[in-house]
Protein backbone atom coordinates (compact mmCIF):
# COMPACT_ATOMS: atom_id res chain seq x y z
CA UNK A 1 0.00 0.00 0.00
CA UNK A 2 1.62 3.26 -1.14
CA UNK A 3 -0.58 6.04 0.12
CA UNK A 4 -2.97 4.95 2.87
CA UNK A 5 -6.29 6.75 3.07
CA UNK A 6 -8.03 6.92 6.44
CA UNK A 7 -11.56 7.82 7.46
CA UNK A 8 -10.32 10.71 9.62
CA UNK A 9 -8.29 12.06 6.73
CA UNK A 10 -11.23 11.84 4.32
CA UNK A 11 -13.61 13.55 6.72
CA UNK A 12 -11.08 16.29 7.52
CA UNK A 13 -10.38 17.03 3.85
CA UNK A 14 -14.10 17.11 3.03
CA UNK A 15 -14.08 20.60 4.57
CA UNK A 16 -12.19 21.68 1.44
CA UNK A 17 -15.01 20.44 -0.80
CA UNK A 18 -17.96 22.61 -1.80
CA UNK A 19 -20.66 22.57 0.88
CA UNK A 20 -22.93 19.55 0.61
CA UNK A 21 -26.37 20.83 -0.48
CA UNK A 22 -28.61 21.28 2.57
CA UNK A 23 -31.63 20.85 0.33
CA UNK A 24 -30.83 17.14 -0.05
CA UNK A 25 -30.80 16.38 3.68
CA UNK A 26 -33.91 18.53 4.17
CA UNK A 27 -35.79 16.64 1.46
CA UNK A 28 -34.59 13.33 2.94
CA UNK A 29 -36.01 14.37 6.30
CA UNK A 30 -39.40 15.03 4.72
CA UNK A 31 -39.37 11.50 3.25
CA UNK A 32 -39.39 10.08 6.76
CA UNK A 33 -42.45 12.17 7.55
CA UNK A 34 -45.55 11.22 5.52
CA UNK A 35 -47.28 14.36 6.78
CA UNK A 36 -44.56 16.66 5.47
CA UNK A 37 -46.42 19.39 3.71
CA UNK A 38 -46.24 20.70 0.22
CA UNK A 39 -45.62 24.15 1.70
CA UNK A 40 -42.55 22.89 3.55
CA UNK A 41 -41.00 21.44 0.37
CA UNK A 42 -41.76 24.67 -1.50
CA UNK A 43 -40.03 26.66 1.24
CA UNK A 44 -36.92 24.47 1.10
CA UNK A 45 -36.64 24.75 -2.66
CA UNK A 46 -37.20 28.50 -2.68
CA UNK A 47 -34.11 28.93 -0.51
CA UNK A 48 -32.04 27.98 -3.56
CA UNK A 49 -32.52 30.23 -6.60
CA UNK A 50 -30.79 27.84 -9.02
CA UNK A 51 -33.01 24.90 -8.07
CA UNK A 52 -36.07 27.14 -8.06
CA UNK A 53 -35.26 28.17 -11.63
CA UNK A 54 -34.99 24.51 -12.69
CA UNK A 55 -38.33 23.61 -11.14
CA UNK A 56 -40.08 26.66 -12.61
CA UNK A 57 -38.62 25.90 -16.04
CA UNK A 58 -40.09 22.39 -15.92
CA UNK A 59 -43.45 23.67 -14.69
CA UNK A 60 -43.61 26.36 -17.35
CA UNK A 61 -42.91 23.81 -20.05
CA UNK A 62 -45.90 21.78 -18.83
CA UNK A 63 -48.01 24.95 -18.52
CA UNK A 64 -47.26 25.93 -22.12
CA UNK A 65 -48.41 22.55 -23.37
CA UNK A 66 -51.56 22.79 -21.28
CA UNK A 67 -52.13 26.17 -22.94
CA UNK A 68 -52.26 28.04 -19.64
CA UNK A 69 -52.34 31.81 -20.05
CA UNK A 70 -50.04 32.80 -17.20
CA UNK A 71 -46.48 31.78 -16.44
CA UNK A 72 -45.72 29.76 -13.32
CA UNK A 73 -43.69 32.00 -11.02
CA UNK A 74 -43.66 30.21 -7.67
CA UNK A 75 -42.70 26.73 -6.50
CA UNK A 76 -46.04 26.12 -4.77
CA UNK A 77 -47.91 26.50 -8.06
CA UNK A 78 -45.26 24.37 -9.80
CA UNK A 79 -45.87 21.54 -7.32
CA UNK A 80 -49.61 21.68 -7.84
CA UNK A 81 -49.06 21.58 -11.61
CA UNK A 82 -46.44 18.86 -12.02
CA UNK A 83 -46.78 16.97 -8.75
CA UNK A 84 -44.85 16.60 -5.52
CA UNK A 85 -42.78 13.57 -6.61
CA UNK A 86 -41.65 15.14 -9.87
CA UNK A 87 -40.65 18.40 -8.17
CA UNK A 88 -38.77 16.53 -5.44
CA UNK A 89 -36.82 14.45 -7.95
CA UNK A 90 -36.05 17.47 -10.12
CA UNK A 91 -34.77 19.35 -7.08
CA UNK A 92 -32.61 16.41 -5.96
CA UNK A 93 -31.17 15.86 -9.43
CA UNK A 94 -30.42 19.53 -10.05
CA UNK A 95 -28.96 20.00 -6.58
CA UNK A 96 -26.71 16.92 -6.54
CA UNK A 97 -25.61 17.09 -10.16
CA UNK A 98 -24.58 20.71 -9.56
CA UNK A 99 -22.66 19.63 -6.46
CA UNK A 100 -20.87 16.83 -8.37
CA UNK A 101 -19.98 19.27 -11.11
CA UNK A 102 -18.27 21.48 -8.52
CA UNK A 103 -16.44 18.62 -6.80
CA UNK A 104 -15.07 16.90 -9.93
CA UNK A 105 -11.68 17.96 -11.26
CA UNK A 106 -11.96 19.62 -14.66
CA UNK A 107 -10.40 16.73 -16.58
CA UNK A 108 -12.91 14.20 -15.23
CA UNK A 109 -15.93 16.48 -14.85
CA UNK A 110 -17.82 15.55 -17.99
CA UNK A 111 -17.59 11.78 -17.55
CA UNK A 112 -18.30 11.72 -13.80
CA UNK A 113 -21.30 13.98 -14.20
CA UNK A 114 -22.82 11.95 -17.03
CA UNK A 115 -22.10 8.60 -15.35
CA UNK A 116 -23.68 9.78 -12.09
CA UNK A 117 -26.81 11.03 -13.86
CA UNK A 118 -27.18 7.74 -15.77
CA UNK A 119 -26.81 5.68 -12.57
CA UNK A 120 -29.29 8.00 -10.82
CA UNK A 121 -31.83 7.48 -13.61
CA UNK A 122 -31.15 3.73 -13.54
CA UNK A 123 -31.93 3.74 -9.81
CA UNK A 124 -35.23 5.53 -10.48
CA UNK A 125 -36.13 2.82 -13.00
CA UNK A 126 -34.99 -0.13 -10.87
CA UNK A 127 -36.30 0.90 -7.43
CA UNK A 128 -39.94 -0.03 -8.24
CA UNK A 129 -38.73 -3.54 -9.25
CA UNK A 130 -37.40 -4.32 -5.75
CA UNK A 131 -39.06 -7.15 -3.84
CA UNK A 132 -39.26 -4.90 -0.78
CA UNK A 133 -40.57 -1.32 -0.68
CA UNK A 134 -37.80 1.05 -1.69
CA UNK A 135 -37.89 4.80 -1.57
CA UNK A 136 -37.16 6.07 -5.07
CA UNK A 137 -35.80 9.39 -3.84
CA UNK A 138 -33.28 7.66 -1.59
CA UNK A 139 -32.36 5.46 -4.57
CA UNK A 140 -31.84 8.54 -6.72
CA UNK A 141 -29.57 10.15 -4.11
CA UNK A 142 -27.52 6.96 -3.67
CA UNK A 143 -27.18 6.56 -7.44
CA UNK A 144 -26.07 10.14 -8.00
CA UNK A 145 -23.51 9.94 -5.18
CA UNK A 146 -22.29 6.34 -5.61
CA UNK A 147 -18.92 7.39 -7.08
CA UNK A 148 -18.30 10.40 -4.86
CA UNK A 149 -15.31 8.49 -3.45
CA UNK A 150 -13.68 8.52 -6.90
CA UNK A 151 -14.15 12.28 -7.06
CA UNK A 152 -12.46 12.54 -3.67
CA UNK A 153 -9.52 10.42 -4.90
CA UNK A 154 -9.24 12.39 -8.14
CA UNK A 155 -9.19 15.64 -6.19
CA UNK A 156 -6.98 14.73 -3.21
CA UNK A 157 -4.83 11.86 -4.58
CA UNK A 158 -4.85 12.84 -8.24
CA UNK A 159 -1.58 11.33 -9.44
CA UNK A 160 -1.95 8.04 -7.58
CA UNK A 161 -5.58 7.78 -8.67
CA UNK A 162 -4.54 8.15 -12.32
CA UNK A 163 -2.07 5.32 -11.71
CA UNK A 164 -4.88 3.17 -10.26
CA UNK A 165 -7.00 3.87 -13.36
CA UNK A 166 -4.10 2.88 -15.61
CA UNK A 167 -3.46 -0.33 -13.65
CA UNK A 168 -7.13 -1.23 -13.90
CA UNK A 169 -7.15 -0.63 -17.66
CA UNK A 170 -4.08 -2.82 -18.13
CA UNK A 171 -5.23 -5.69 -15.95
CA UNK A 172 -8.90 -5.63 -16.98
CA UNK A 173 -9.83 -5.91 -13.31
CA UNK A 174 -12.19 -3.47 -11.61
CA UNK A 175 -10.80 -0.11 -10.51
CA UNK A 176 -11.63 -0.99 -6.89
CA UNK A 177 -8.86 -3.64 -6.85
CA UNK A 178 -6.20 -1.15 -7.96
CA UNK A 179 -7.46 1.41 -5.45
CA UNK A 180 -7.26 -1.05 -2.57
CA UNK A 181 -3.69 -1.96 -3.57
CA UNK A 182 -2.64 1.70 -3.59
CA UNK A 183 -4.74 3.29 -0.86
CA UNK A 184 -5.82 0.38 1.36
CA UNK A 185 -9.45 1.22 0.65
CA UNK A 186 -11.53 1.70 -2.50
CA UNK A 187 -13.69 4.59 -3.69
CA UNK A 188 -16.87 2.86 -2.48
CA UNK A 189 -15.57 2.88 1.10
CA UNK A 190 -14.42 6.51 0.82
CA UNK A 191 -17.80 7.50 -0.64
CA UNK A 192 -19.60 5.81 2.25
CA UNK A 193 -17.45 7.71 4.79
CA UNK A 194 -18.36 10.98 3.08
CA UNK A 195 -22.07 10.10 2.89
CA UNK A 196 -22.12 9.24 6.59
CA UNK A 197 -20.31 12.50 7.39
CA UNK A 198 -22.97 14.44 5.46
CA UNK A 199 -25.71 12.80 7.53
CA UNK A 200 -27.24 10.63 4.81
CA UNK A 201 -29.25 7.58 5.90
CA UNK A 202 -27.57 4.28 6.77
CA UNK A 203 -29.31 2.62 3.82
CA UNK A 204 -27.74 5.14 1.42
CA UNK A 205 -24.34 4.79 3.09
CA UNK A 206 -24.47 0.98 2.75
CA UNK A 207 -25.60 1.20 -0.89
CA UNK A 208 -22.63 3.43 -1.74
CA UNK A 209 -20.23 1.22 0.26
CA UNK A 210 -21.38 -1.98 -1.45
CA UNK A 211 -21.94 -0.97 -5.05
CA UNK A 212 -19.00 -3.06 -6.32
CA UNK A 213 -19.29 -5.94 -3.81
CA UNK A 214 -22.95 -6.26 -2.89
CA UNK A 215 -23.41 -10.00 -2.42
CA UNK A 216 -23.35 -10.02 1.39
CA UNK A 217 -26.00 -7.30 1.52
CA UNK A 218 -28.14 -8.07 -1.52
CA UNK A 219 -31.16 -8.48 0.76
CA UNK A 220 -31.10 -4.70 1.13
CA UNK A 221 -33.05 -3.31 -1.82
CA UNK A 222 -31.08 -0.07 -2.09
CA UNK A 223 -27.79 -2.02 -2.31
CA UNK A 224 -29.21 -4.11 -5.16
CA UNK A 225 -30.63 -1.09 -6.97
CA UNK A 226 -27.39 0.92 -6.97
CA UNK A 227 -25.21 -2.07 -7.89
CA UNK A 228 -27.34 -3.09 -10.89
CA UNK A 229 -27.83 0.53 -12.03
CA UNK A 230 -24.06 1.02 -12.01
CA UNK A 231 -23.46 -2.18 -13.98
CA UNK A 232 -26.11 -1.21 -16.54
CA UNK A 233 -24.63 2.26 -16.95
CA UNK A 234 -21.36 0.67 -18.03
CA UNK A 235 -22.90 -2.22 -19.98
CA UNK A 236 -25.12 0.05 -22.07
CA UNK A 237 -22.21 2.46 -22.67
CA UNK A 238 -24.55 5.44 -22.51
CA UNK A 239 -21.73 7.86 -21.67
CA UNK A 240 -19.44 6.42 -24.37
CA UNK A 241 -16.55 6.48 -21.93
CA UNK A 242 -13.59 4.43 -23.19
CA UNK A 243 -12.95 3.15 -19.63
CA UNK A 244 -16.42 1.60 -19.14
CA UNK A 245 -16.05 -2.00 -17.94
CA UNK A 246 -18.33 -4.74 -16.58
CA UNK A 247 -16.74 -7.49 -14.50
CA UNK A 248 -19.91 -9.07 -13.07
CA UNK A 249 -23.48 -8.48 -12.08
CA UNK A 250 -24.52 -9.91 -8.73
CA UNK A 251 -27.03 -12.76 -9.06
CA UNK A 252 -28.52 -12.15 -5.58
CA UNK A 253 -29.02 -8.46 -6.48
CA UNK A 254 -30.72 -9.43 -9.74
CA UNK A 255 -32.98 -11.78 -7.76
CA UNK A 256 -33.85 -8.96 -5.32
CA UNK A 257 -34.98 -6.89 -8.31
CA UNK A 258 -36.74 -9.75 -10.11
CA UNK A 259 -34.40 -9.41 -13.10
CA UNK A 260 -33.82 -12.57 -15.10
CA UNK A 261 -32.16 -10.98 -18.17
CA UNK A 262 -34.62 -12.32 -20.69
CA UNK A 263 -36.21 -10.32 -23.53
CA UNK A 264 -38.05 -8.08 -21.04
CA UNK A 265 -34.66 -6.45 -20.39
CA UNK A 266 -34.87 -4.73 -23.79
CA UNK A 267 -37.59 -2.38 -22.56
CA UNK A 268 -35.68 -1.63 -19.34
CA UNK A 269 -32.54 -0.77 -21.34
CA UNK A 270 -34.51 1.50 -23.65
CA UNK A 271 -36.19 3.31 -20.77
CA UNK A 272 -32.90 3.90 -18.94
CA UNK A 273 -31.15 5.14 -22.08
CA UNK A 274 -33.95 7.50 -23.15
CA UNK A 275 -34.59 8.86 -19.64
CA UNK A 276 -30.85 9.41 -19.15
CA UNK A 277 -30.58 11.43 -22.35
CA UNK A 278 -33.66 13.40 -21.30
CA UNK A 279 -32.16 14.13 -17.86
CA UNK A 280 -28.77 15.12 -19.30
CA UNK A 281 -30.49 17.45 -21.76
CA UNK A 282 -32.55 19.03 -19.00
CA UNK A 283 -29.77 19.41 -16.44
CA UNK A 284 -27.04 20.72 -18.76
Amino acid sequence: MDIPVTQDGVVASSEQLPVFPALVTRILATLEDPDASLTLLAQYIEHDPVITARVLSLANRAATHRRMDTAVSDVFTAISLIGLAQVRQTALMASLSGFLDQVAPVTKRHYFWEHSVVVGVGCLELAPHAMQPTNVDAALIAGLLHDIGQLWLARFRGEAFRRACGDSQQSGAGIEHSERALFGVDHACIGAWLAAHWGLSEAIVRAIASHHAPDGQADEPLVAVVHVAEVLSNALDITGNAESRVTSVSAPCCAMLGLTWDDSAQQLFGRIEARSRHAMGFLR
Partner: protein
Amino acid sequence: MRTRKLYIPIAEAHVGMVLGEDVQDNYRRPYQPAGLTLSDENLHQLAANHAEFICILAPDERSDDAIADDAAAATQRIQTIFQGADLTQPATAALLQQVLLYRSA
Protein backbone atom coordinates in the same frame (compact mmCIF):
# COMPACT_ATOMS: atom_id res chain seq x y z
CA MET B 1 -40.67 -0.86 -45.02
CA ARG B 2 -38.46 -2.31 -42.31
CA THR B 3 -38.88 -0.67 -38.88
CA ARG B 4 -37.18 -0.91 -35.51
CA LYS B 5 -38.19 0.07 -32.00
CA LEU B 6 -36.31 3.04 -30.57
CA TYR B 7 -36.65 4.71 -27.19
CA ILE B 8 -36.13 8.45 -27.51
CA PRO B 9 -36.20 11.44 -25.13
CA ILE B 10 -39.40 13.42 -25.47
CA ALA B 11 -37.48 16.40 -26.88
CA GLU B 12 -36.75 14.33 -30.01
CA ALA B 13 -40.41 13.36 -30.61
CA HIS B 14 -42.18 14.98 -33.54
CA VAL B 15 -45.41 14.86 -35.51
CA GLY B 16 -45.73 11.81 -37.74
CA MET B 17 -43.76 9.40 -35.56
CA VAL B 18 -45.50 6.11 -34.81
CA LEU B 19 -45.62 4.84 -31.21
CA GLY B 20 -43.97 1.44 -30.72
CA GLU B 21 -45.46 0.91 -27.26
CA ASP B 22 -48.34 2.32 -25.22
CA VAL B 23 -47.52 5.54 -23.39
CA GLN B 24 -48.55 5.31 -19.75
CA ASP B 25 -49.18 7.96 -17.11
CA ASN B 26 -47.58 7.93 -13.64
CA TYR B 27 -50.16 5.35 -12.52
CA ARG B 28 -49.22 3.00 -15.39
CA ARG B 29 -52.50 3.71 -17.19
CA PRO B 30 -52.04 3.86 -20.98
CA TYR B 31 -53.22 7.12 -22.51
CA GLN B 32 -51.70 6.84 -26.00
CA PRO B 33 -51.75 3.42 -27.69
CA ALA B 34 -49.00 1.65 -29.63
CA GLY B 35 -49.46 2.24 -33.37
CA LEU B 36 -50.70 5.83 -32.92
CA THR B 37 -49.23 8.33 -35.41
CA LEU B 38 -48.34 11.36 -33.31
CA SER B 39 -50.16 14.62 -34.00
CA ASP B 40 -49.40 18.07 -32.62
CA GLU B 41 -52.17 17.52 -30.06
CA ASN B 42 -50.61 14.21 -28.97
CA LEU B 43 -47.24 15.93 -28.43
CA HIS B 44 -48.92 18.58 -26.26
CA GLN B 45 -50.59 15.81 -24.29
CA LEU B 46 -47.25 14.03 -23.75
CA ALA B 47 -45.59 17.21 -22.52
CA ALA B 48 -48.54 18.10 -20.29
CA ASN B 49 -48.20 14.64 -18.70
CA HIS B 50 -44.45 15.18 -18.14
CA ALA B 51 -43.50 12.24 -20.37
CA GLU B 52 -39.70 11.95 -20.42
CA PHE B 53 -39.43 9.47 -23.29
CA ILE B 54 -41.45 7.44 -25.78
CA CYS B 55 -40.88 4.25 -27.76
CA ILE B 56 -41.32 4.71 -31.51
CA LEU B 57 -41.36 2.46 -34.55
CA ALA B 58 -38.68 4.12 -36.64
CA PRO B 59 -38.27 3.41 -40.35
CA ASP B 60 -35.02 1.49 -40.83
CA GLU B 61 -33.65 2.57 -44.20
CA ARG B 62 -30.25 0.97 -43.73
CA SER B 63 -29.13 -1.65 -46.21
CA ASP B 64 -28.52 -5.22 -45.03
CA ASP B 65 -24.77 -4.57 -45.24
CA ALA B 66 -25.06 -1.37 -43.19
CA ILE B 67 -27.11 -3.20 -40.55
CA ALA B 68 -24.49 -5.94 -40.39
CA ASP B 69 -21.66 -3.38 -40.11
CA ASP B 70 -23.44 -1.48 -37.31
CA ALA B 71 -24.09 -4.73 -35.44
CA ALA B 72 -20.45 -5.81 -35.80
CA ALA B 73 -19.17 -2.46 -34.48
CA ALA B 74 -21.59 -2.60 -31.54
CA THR B 75 -20.58 -6.19 -30.76
CA GLN B 76 -16.89 -5.28 -30.75
CA ARG B 77 -17.49 -2.36 -28.37
CA ILE B 78 -19.60 -4.48 -25.99
CA GLN B 79 -17.00 -7.26 -25.99
CA THR B 80 -14.39 -4.69 -24.95
CA ILE B 81 -16.61 -3.53 -22.08
CA PHE B 82 -17.14 -7.14 -20.94
CA GLN B 83 -13.57 -8.34 -21.64
CA GLY B 84 -12.76 -8.84 -17.95
CA ALA B 85 -16.19 -10.24 -17.06
CA ASP B 86 -16.61 -13.63 -15.46
CA LEU B 87 -18.94 -15.23 -17.99
CA THR B 88 -19.14 -18.47 -16.03
CA GLN B 89 -21.62 -16.57 -13.87
CA PRO B 90 -25.05 -17.15 -15.48
CA ALA B 91 -26.40 -13.69 -14.59
CA THR B 92 -23.41 -11.88 -16.13
CA ALA B 93 -23.49 -14.07 -19.26
CA ALA B 94 -27.24 -13.51 -19.68
CA LEU B 95 -26.80 -9.74 -19.24
CA LEU B 96 -24.13 -9.74 -21.95
CA GLN B 97 -26.47 -11.57 -24.36
CA GLN B 98 -29.28 -9.07 -23.75
CA VAL B 99 -26.96 -6.09 -24.25
CA LEU B 100 -25.71 -7.60 -27.52
CA LEU B 101 -29.32 -8.09 -28.64
CA TYR B 102 -30.24 -4.52 -27.65
CA ARG B 103 -27.33 -2.93 -29.50
CA SER B 104 -27.72 -5.05 -32.63
CA ALA B 105 -31.39 -4.08 -33.12
